[in-house]
């Protein structure tokens, strides 16, 4: 028996209808495919609800330090912070003070990448701004260029200990580093460590997702809720958005 074109198409339609589920539902958590690559189909971004963020909570900063082996040297001038908790006060006490985490804003027009003399800092196709530490010469021009104070230089040698995350390298002395949206987790289809920690231990104030997907939680929220970015006047188009600032 031979099937004509119409029958084959009809069978295909039935097969497709069979695997479609309600939106937001997946059958099983599939492992990532063998080969993945950053693509401009995605545009990763973060949304932080300042109203939910508690000034005493440091779940995100702790998780970041643990996940990315961010060293602490014990010298406040030289310690490395990928994510910092800031307290913003109104000088005239008209509004209550707010606490918010600040990190690399993964700008669409990153001044750090523009000034980098070796192209060590670059913007990946999916919008994550990264430092290629193999190329960084430690000139610190990017640290001057960044308006968010998101970057730190590794001033001292670091070493691995039993608590270190083996998936992530430790640091070479004399390179600049910053938040990378936990790129190794994002490439595996997971959420950054701070977002996971905020959901599990904190107040669920952080959302991470794809702005190019109109159905994603973050896209819906940015469309429907009033959000802001820090220093939007600079025209850098940051991709860390804040709600209730």
């Amino acid at each position: 028996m031979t099937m004509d074109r119409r029958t084959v198409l009809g069978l295909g339609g039935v097969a497709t209808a069979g695997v479609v589920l309600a939106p937001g539902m997946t059958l099983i958590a599939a492992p990532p495919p063998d080969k993945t690559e950053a693509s401009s189909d995605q545009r990763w971004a973060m949304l932080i609800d300042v109203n939910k963020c508690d000034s005493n909570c440091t779940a995100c900063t702790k998780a970041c330090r643990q996940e990315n082996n961010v060293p602490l040297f014990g010298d406040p001038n030289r310690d490395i912070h990928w994510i910092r908790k800031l307290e913003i006060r109104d000088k005239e006490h008209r509004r209550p003070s707010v606490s918010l985490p600040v990190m690399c804003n993964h700008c669409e027009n990153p001044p750090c990448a523009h000034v980098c003399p070796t192209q060590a800092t670059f913007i990946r196709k999916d919008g994550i701004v990264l430092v290629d530490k193999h190329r960084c010469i430690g000139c610190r021009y990017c640290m001057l260029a960044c308006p968010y104070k998101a970057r730190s230089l590794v001033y001292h040698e670091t070493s691995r200990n039993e608590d270190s995350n083996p998936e992530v390298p430790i640091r070479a002395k004399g390179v600049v580093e910053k938040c990378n949206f936990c790129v190794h987790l994002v490439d595996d289809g997971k959420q950054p460590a701070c977002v996971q920690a905020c959901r599990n231990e904190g107040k669920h104030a952080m959302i991470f997702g794809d702005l190019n997907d109109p159905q994603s939680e973050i896209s819906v929220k940015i469309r429907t809720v009033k959000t802001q970015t820090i220093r939007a006047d600079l025209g850098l188009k940051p991709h860390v958005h804040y709600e209730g600032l």
Partner: protein
Amino acid sequence: MRSLQSHPLKFTVLLALVWAFVLVLPTMVVASGSGADVTQHSKSAYTGGPPQLENAKGEACIRPSDWMRRNHMDFLKHRRAQTVREGLRIRSESLIKCAECHQSREKFCDQCHNYVGVAPDCFECHSYPK
């Protein structure tokens, strides 16, 4: 002879050269003899030979072994750049897969690197997968 007598400086130089040759020749013979001894000695003392690597666990490498021996450094460096800058992650060809067969870095990578005297600094920051 007439011309030499007319140029006494040339004659002196020639005489000096002859004497120098007579004096130096036995020294050279002795030196070459002892030199041969030295070579012989070092050859007999050297027993190392190229490092013998432990057999890898798996069936076959992801590329032919001959090709890997010659090209692994360019392959790894190219993949490194692609992974960092383009986000390319091929899980079946990641370093984790290398470590599944070549379980000890000391008995695999370091053996040849020490033998040929190269010092790649990959593992000063990264950890070799266990």
